[in-house]
């Protein structure tokens, strides 16, 4: 319990909670088959807090929506429900973006820069896959159709990209953030 935690609490109330209502209604509308909306929203908050605790986040709102969407798709897969027919068209980040999500202070920008540089250093295909999956939050399937490549290629390129990024982390001291 430190002043830093208090700061985290304030950040949460000021920058994250205002998106809760939006997130809920979006989740209900987009994935009517999901029953435990509360659990899922709670889980998304928990993940966001964890991430915020250990470093900067470019856009808390986008982080919430992308995380929740990943969880929802994952759960649908386990439930063997049909996907909503338009699920492939969804861009969770396109909704209600009139007010920009507040970004972290410039002081922490360095860590985000490292992540960006790691992606930039990748071969073209890897870079595109990582960009679509991580920055736009598309699923692997959606990445495949957008790039006109097979899902298998997406998986393979993503894997190569991830390994190269970890290599990049290793060379640039970013691995210090691992091992909590």
């Amino acid at each position: 319990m430190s002043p830093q935690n208090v700061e985290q609490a304030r950040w949460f109330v000021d920058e994250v909670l205002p998106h809760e209502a939006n997130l809920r209604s979006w989740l209900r509308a987009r994935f009517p088959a999901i029953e435990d909306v509360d659990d899922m929203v709670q889980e998304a908050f928990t993940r966001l807090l964890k991430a915020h605790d250990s470093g900067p986040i470019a856009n808390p709102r986008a982080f919430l929506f992308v995380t929740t969407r990943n969880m929802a798709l994952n759960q649908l897969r386990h439930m063997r429900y049909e996907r909503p027919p338009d699920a492939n068209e969804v861009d969770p980040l396109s909704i209600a973006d009139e007010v920009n999500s507040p970004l972290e202070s410039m002081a922490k920008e360095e860590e985000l820069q490292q992540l960006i540089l790691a992606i930039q250093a990748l071969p073209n295909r890897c870079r595109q896959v990582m960009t679509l999956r991580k920055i736009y939050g598309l699923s692997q399937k959606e990445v495949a159709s957008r790039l006109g490549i097979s899902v298998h290629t997406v998986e393979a390129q993503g894997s190569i990209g991830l390994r190269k990024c970890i290599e990049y982390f290793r060379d640039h001291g970013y691995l210090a953030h691992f091992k909590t």
Partner: protein
Amino acid sequence: MNTSSSSNFPEQPEIEKAAANWTLRLDRGLTAEEQDKYSQWLSEDPRHGEAIALCRWGWDEFDRLAGLQTTQHAKIDPDLLAPGNRFVRKSPILKFCFAVVPLAAAFAFMAVAFWPEHAEKQSVFASKSAIELIARLEQKTLADGSVIELNRGAIAEVEYSPEARRVRLIHGEANFTVAKDPDRPFIVNVAGVDVCAVGTQFNVRLKDDAVDVIVSEGIVRLATSKILNSASDVLEEPLLEVGHRAVVKLGGTPKVNRSILSPSDMDRELGWQPRMLDFDDTPMSEIVLEFNRRNEVQLKLGDSSLADIRFSNYIWSDNLEGFVRLMESNFGMRAEWHGSSEIVLRDAGKNQAR
């Protein structure tokens, strides 16, 4: 002699490659068949678990960049981060985004300020949710009612089948409260060590070179599987009872160190777990004692009149700041920080009157 054993194992880059492949498959969801293969792969070598923890962490780190583009209202662009594109070269554009946003946030704030009703609703709602969410470690209730609490940074995977309830602790520390079910053992696999329970509570921590198990309720059986034991026999350990601790050294022949913890040692070892405090018409003075017993930061009452105020509430023991905020926002108190280790609560009305 030590060097010869390593030649049986694939090299580190190979392991990392496999781990990256699994991370991508996990990201899209495993098929039933892959699930089995994945379990198999993980149990083959303790280093597989470490590699997967690293890869999954690395993969998740990039979620920090989610929505990087939304400030620009850009369409989906796979080449957003192409070398030579706008984010490159010390990223003047990115800096620009960071500079612009506070302005947008200021406008948003003004908008809220003009609708005070709306703003008030928001804040009450906010403090209520904050109580539930802030500073809590991750807790999961499984389908059978068993509960896993993950300490910061811990990663666990759950696999339930009709025969057994299996959980794999891949990284970090977790506490398990197991629902009773004699027909379906609850097994925690950690770096090749099986911790089996029927209905009980225990704590497992994966360290760099050892697995540390502490039993706080019931009985637990420990089994180290053949991966660790070159003699290829499954080594079964005597039962662990309440207050027992077993530390299994990893690498080479498994060595189990057993010890018995005193109740105060147990409290200290398991102190990371937050507890749900249930206050039912409890005076403030008692609530303060309860928090102070469990937190480093100490709470004090600056006005004696506060001591007798009664509350009914439930709150996590590590959520001191959530409690303090609730007192401030809904119960007319004011909090003063004295350094970083003490918070004094006062009656806000009284101080205003003074």
